[in-house]
């Protein structure tokens, strides 16, 4: 009972700190409320004031007299403290800009970010803060706490502008519902980055059992059964996990064999411009029946729905999975040579199809707050990382010290690749690469920092089967956004609950009609309409 009071108290304190934070924020922003009217081009008005004589529009240093900017973002568990990273230390010397890093561990970041906005005590820049389309709509278009970057990018960011001009789809991804750009994306134009998950199968186990790579979902199930019963790792124990799916939410992007698309990186098909959410479709039911079979026969990882990343990683590293899905092989480098990619399986849809596609740009890697003290310098600071030379520097560090160029391709030094503490942790001391989400460009040349040659191979076999037209989630106006948030909050919770119950057999498929009726009741069709409207507005 005591303990509960303590919990109650801490909850109360939390509310209090949030609320008092708001109070002081109000006082601070009183003066600027008029100048930062939502939607106004704050960049323009700020430009003449702070473009002091020490600012260089080109070349290094960016400013003659050292300035300090505060940078706020999410720190991956493999990152060293940001001010200790080789890249940032070196870059401070080059640019003459001191970044006062305020990084927050990824674990509590989601709520911390919301409190930063709610308290309106904003940093100068948001660096790797993972701002989502929803947040851009709320805090950019809505409350005007993010700065409009259109003019700044045009004037001071030649490298980013180059990508925007060369790849209109990347620019389009970044445009918010009011037509302005609020954040700079992570750009990934590498072949490997065109899809998220690659599918992997343990070829050593296949060889051991004398099996060939499956091509249909029936063959796939037979192979998984053989993995389960045949003790392919030869240790005499039934510790093999035939199929690994990382999370309950990963299910939706892997239904290609059943003809389920993953447009807007959600449960949507978009054919001839018609937006359709397939959560109630029979083909999705067929997919769930198949997964339910796999689960009940102990072919699918039995703990897949527990969101237990540490368990997932240790199973990966212990080579316990027969087949599984991963974007990169970085967490199972120790056994990656036993795995290989394979072509999409053929299922009821009758064609090979890999729906798990990405648009090449992920919004929210870098943004300026409306109170940024030196917007030009802040934009120039990040733009360098989008140039060829800068991207290499941002991801690999200093040539000669951290990497060398072999056959025209950058290669990290062996002491990083084979570091005792793990490759990713060693890399995290040099650069911000672990965990992605950083402001830079991944190309076929620079993506080797993440993608091993085996990963690139695995991506290559899937590439011919990606959908031709790729849609990103379109920007939605703040008013519609209120509805989207309200509907999706119930829809996503219910969907994940129901789908997991179908798969693990907690619900029988006689519940299917109830499930569909509930989705309708929550508002799945209204959601479809809102996205349809937004997609149409983009054309």
């Amino acid at each position, binding site marked *: 009972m005591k303990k509960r009071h303590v*919990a*109650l108290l801490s909850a109360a304190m939390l509310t209090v700190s949030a*609320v008092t934070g708001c109070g002081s924020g109000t006082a601070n922003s009183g003066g600027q409320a008029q100048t930062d009217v939502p939607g106004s081009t704050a960049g323009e008005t700020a430009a003449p004031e702070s473009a002091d004589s020490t600012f260089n529009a080109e070349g290094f240093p960016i400013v003659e007299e050292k300035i300090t900017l505060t940078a706020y973002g999410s720190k991956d568990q493999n990152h060293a403290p940001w001010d200790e990273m080789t890249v940032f230390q070196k870059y401070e010397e080059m640019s003459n800009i001191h970044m006062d890093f305020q990084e927050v561990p990824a674990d509590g970041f989601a709520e911390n970010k919301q409190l930063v906005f709610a308290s*309106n005590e904003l940093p100068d820049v948001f660096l790797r803060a993972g701002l989502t389309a929803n947040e851009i709509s709320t805090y950019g278009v809505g409350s005007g*706490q993010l700065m409009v970057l259109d003019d700044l990018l045009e004037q001071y960011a030649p490298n980013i502008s180059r990508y925007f001009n060369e790849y209109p789809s990347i620019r389009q991804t970044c445009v918010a519902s009011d037509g302005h750009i609020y954040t700079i994306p992570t750009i990934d134009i590498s072949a490997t980055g065109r899809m998220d998950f690659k599918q992997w199968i343990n070829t050593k186990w296949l060889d051991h059992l004398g099996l060939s790579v499956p091509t249909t979902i029936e063959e796939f199930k037979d192979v998984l059964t053989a993995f389960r019963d045949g003790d392919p790792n030869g240790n005499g124990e039934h510790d093999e996990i035939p199929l690994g799916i990382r999370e309950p939410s990963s299910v939706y992007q892997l239904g290609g064999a059943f003809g389920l698309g993953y447009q807007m990186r959600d449960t949507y098909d978009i054919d001839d411009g018609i937006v359709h959410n397939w959560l109630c479709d029979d083909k999705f039911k067929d997919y769930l029946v198949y997964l339910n079979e796999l689960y009940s026969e102990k072919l699918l990882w039995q703990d897949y729905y527990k969101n237990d990343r540490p368990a997932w990683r240790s199973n990966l590293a212990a080579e316990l999975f027969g087949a599984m899905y991963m974007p990169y092989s970085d967490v199972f480098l120790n056994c990656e040579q036993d795995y290989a990619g394979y072509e999409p399986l053929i299922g009821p849809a009758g064609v090979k199809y890999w729906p798990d596609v990405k648009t090449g740009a992920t919004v929210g890697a870098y943004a300026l707050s409306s109170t940024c003290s030196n917007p030009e310098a802040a934009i120039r600071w990040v733009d360098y990382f989008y140039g060829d030379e800068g991207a290499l520097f941002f991801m690999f560090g200093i040539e000669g010290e951290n990497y060398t160029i072999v056959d025209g391709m950058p290669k990290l030094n062996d002491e990083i690749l084979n570091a005792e503490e793990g490759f990713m942790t060693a890399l995290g001391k040099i650069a911000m690469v672990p965990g992605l989400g950083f402001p830079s460009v991944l190309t076929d040349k620079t993506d080797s920092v993440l993608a091993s040659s085996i990963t690139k191979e695995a991506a290559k076999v899937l590439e011919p089967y990606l959908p031709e037209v790729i849609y990103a989630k379109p920007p939605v106006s703040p008013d519609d956004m209120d509805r989207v948030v309200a509907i999706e909050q119930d829809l996503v919770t219910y969907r994940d609950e129901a789908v997991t119950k179908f798969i693990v057999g907690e619900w029988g498929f006689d519940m299917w009609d109830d499930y569909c009726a509930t989705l309708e009741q929550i508002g799945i069709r209204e959601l479809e309409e809102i996205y349809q409207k937004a997609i149409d507005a983009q054309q």
Partner: protein
Amino acid sequence: MGNRLRKTVRQIRRDAGLYIILAVPVAWYLIFKYVPMYGLQIAFKKFNPTLGIIGSPWAGTTYFKQFFNSYYFADILWNTVSLSVFTMLIGFPAPILLALLINEIKNTRFKKAVQNITYMPNFLSVVVIVSMLSLFSNRDYGLFNRITSVFGREAVDFMSKPGYFQPLYVFSNVWQYMGFNAIIYIAALAGVDAELYEAASIDGASRMQKILHISIPSIMDTILILFIMRIGSIMTVGFEKVYLMQNNVTISASEVISTFIYKNGIQKGQFSYSTAVGMFNSVINFVLLAGANFVSKKTAKTSLW
């Protein structure tokens, strides 16, 4: 009038020390409990951080309606209430029984040992408790399934069955906090006049009769006050443990108001909405507290106010 004022000043001057001591908790309550209440108005406003709490536009009862119309509203309310009531029905009498039992132990060393062993789990982190539950529930090697298999039951992963969520939560709570919560009752029992027991023994009372007619009536006031205080927080289910224990499969049985606020309000930044939900929670809490207090006042003549 002037006379009265002078009298008050004199009194304050006389007891200045006491007033200074009083000022600290009063200030604490004002700063941390009353002043923040002005922020509650954002439950009725569309909160915009740049405009601040006062400046944000009014939204009426939009957010309350949104919560009441939410698909999960009924589930969440039911889970919160049932989990609390269940926890209280089992969790409240348990320490009293334990205290009565410990009180009956005559061997001092054995008594101390029992007391220590039962209150130790109180100091374990909730994270540890939930990890233990997870391991015990494992289908292949878990303790619970080893026990049920003796009775020929099929192995199940208890953590992934909605029906087992509440029992697991409640009984692990009892196990963890029973010993610690018993301390206050043991202390109350220690204060009972030994002559009462001697007199009862002379009259030929059995042990059971002594417990029923001496021990329990002596600590009844303590029990009632603690009960009323517990009622006041009936809707406040411990957040951390529920959050750690829940997964997609058990969400229909495990989503409670506090986890709902955390996920939708704090993580997704819907401050107005979550304030509205929190306010709803507090109002129900207050009604329950007032009700329990009223009943207690009428029946047992003990009350908080």
